[in-house]
């Protein structure tokens, strides 16, 4: 079984492309007067978060890679390095991405890492680079374990993960409306991903896809972008700071404060870590499910429309 297999670090290689594409988007918006918004400090924070993510990968990448190599040594399977194996790995890793991303919105411990990606009230190509610094602490690397155990080499899996990340860069834009229907049907697109970044009740917790939108359609989390409801970007409660340290760590701090509150049971403390964001032991906060139900209660005509519960749906 091969231990040594190398692929280029394509995310690092794509950095010049990222910079050029951002400059092109800024120029497009400036010339056309439409297609998105930029703000200096917001963009700077996003870019610094991206640089921090690369730094974090360099400093902490050994944790995941060490874990994957340990699995690789114990698995008897080796699927080889044929292009069709890389293609299959890419598709399966995208399925892996879907579930990690879904956990990232439904499990507060994972949301603490992912929340920063949603913390901008803008949606442009710099938003794509507003990435986590704390990914390894979510332990979501375990979701990749089946791929390694099935015989996909860790270097190939990480290469496919890099391709996935690069694909997702271009969909963080308002400059592109809708792509051809066949493409919208299969692939994640700017339109689908705008929905994912929405804080509107109907758009919360939807469209977790990385590359293929079919996963959302398959698992019931797809919500289309509606012409009559413009996406409002950001968090349910938007941040009041551009400080990258606060952006990176605020939800971890919030979890720490919650689990160290006096008078809680151990079950409550655990629930503050693993229940969906917005859960609280005394019901003083709202989860996305509760926000959607409140929205429907206040706007009964929206019940049962995309992204919103039907009338009388269970608590």
């Amino acid at each position, binding site marked *: 079984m091969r231990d040594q297999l190398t692929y280029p670090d394509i995310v690092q290689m794509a950095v010049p492309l990222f910079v050029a594409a951002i400059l092109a988007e800024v120029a497009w918006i400036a010339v056309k007067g439409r297609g998105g918004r930029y703000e200096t400090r917001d963009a700077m924070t996003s870019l610094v978060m991206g*640089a921090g993510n*690369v730094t974090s990968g360099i400093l902490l990448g050994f944790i995941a890679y060490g874990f994957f190599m340990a699995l690789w040594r114990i698995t008897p399977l080796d699927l080889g390095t044929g292009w069709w194996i890389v293609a299959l790995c890419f598709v399966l890793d995208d399925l892996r991405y879907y579930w990690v991303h879904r956990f990232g919105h439904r499990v507060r411990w994972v949301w603490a890492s992912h929340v920063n990606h949603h913390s901008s009230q803008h949606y442009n190509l710099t938003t794509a680079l507003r990435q986590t610094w704390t990914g390894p602490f979510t332990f979501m690397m375990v979701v990749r374990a089946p791929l390694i155990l099935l015989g996909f080499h860790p270097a190939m899996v990480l290469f496919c993960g890099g391709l996935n990340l690069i694909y997702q860069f271009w969909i963080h834009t308002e400059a592109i409306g809708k792509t051809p229907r066949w493409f919208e049907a299969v692939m994640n697109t700017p339109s689908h991903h705008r929905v994912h970044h929405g804080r509107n009740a109907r758009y919360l917790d939807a469209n977790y896809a990385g590359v293929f939108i079919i996963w959302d359609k398959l698992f019931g989390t797809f919500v289309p972008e509606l012409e009559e409801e413009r996406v409002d970007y950001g968090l349910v409660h938007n941040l*009041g700071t551009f400080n990258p340290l606060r952006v990176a760590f605020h939800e971890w701090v919030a979890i720490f404060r919650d689990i160290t509150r006096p008078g809680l049971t151990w079950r409550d403390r655990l629930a503050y870590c693993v229940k969906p964001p917005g859960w609280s032991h005394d019901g003083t906060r709202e989860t996305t499910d509760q926000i959607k139900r409140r929205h429907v209660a206040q706007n009964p005509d929206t019940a049962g429309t995309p992204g919103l519960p039907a009338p009388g749906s269970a608590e």
Partner: protein
Amino acid sequence: MPLHVLIILVAAGIAGIVGLLHLLGLSEPARLADEDAARAAWAAEFPDDPALAVIVSHDRGAALVETQRGRGIVWPVGADTTARYLIGARARRTRSGVRIDLPDFTAPHVHLRLDAREADRWPALLEDTA
């Protein structure tokens, strides 16, 4: 890619993009056009507790709101806005207006540019709920 090349590329990329955006005039903070804009900005954060009364600062850079649950503040975060209740807030005068310290890791300080009359009045309004 050698690490030093990556570092230069990232640093130059960030500096270039940020410089360009500033030169394009995209560093201007949001302004609250009127009381309705302030109410809308508050409602965007707390839709189930509408603003009952609003005081917009003279430069339209912030607004104090009164709600059923207490007082709050709306202020610009870049080209957008956010809002917080003032429970536990501490306010003090600065040379340009008032600084509010909030017990909130995601919004620790709010610097308000106020004229002398507002700067005299607003801390007292804030203290009511502090």
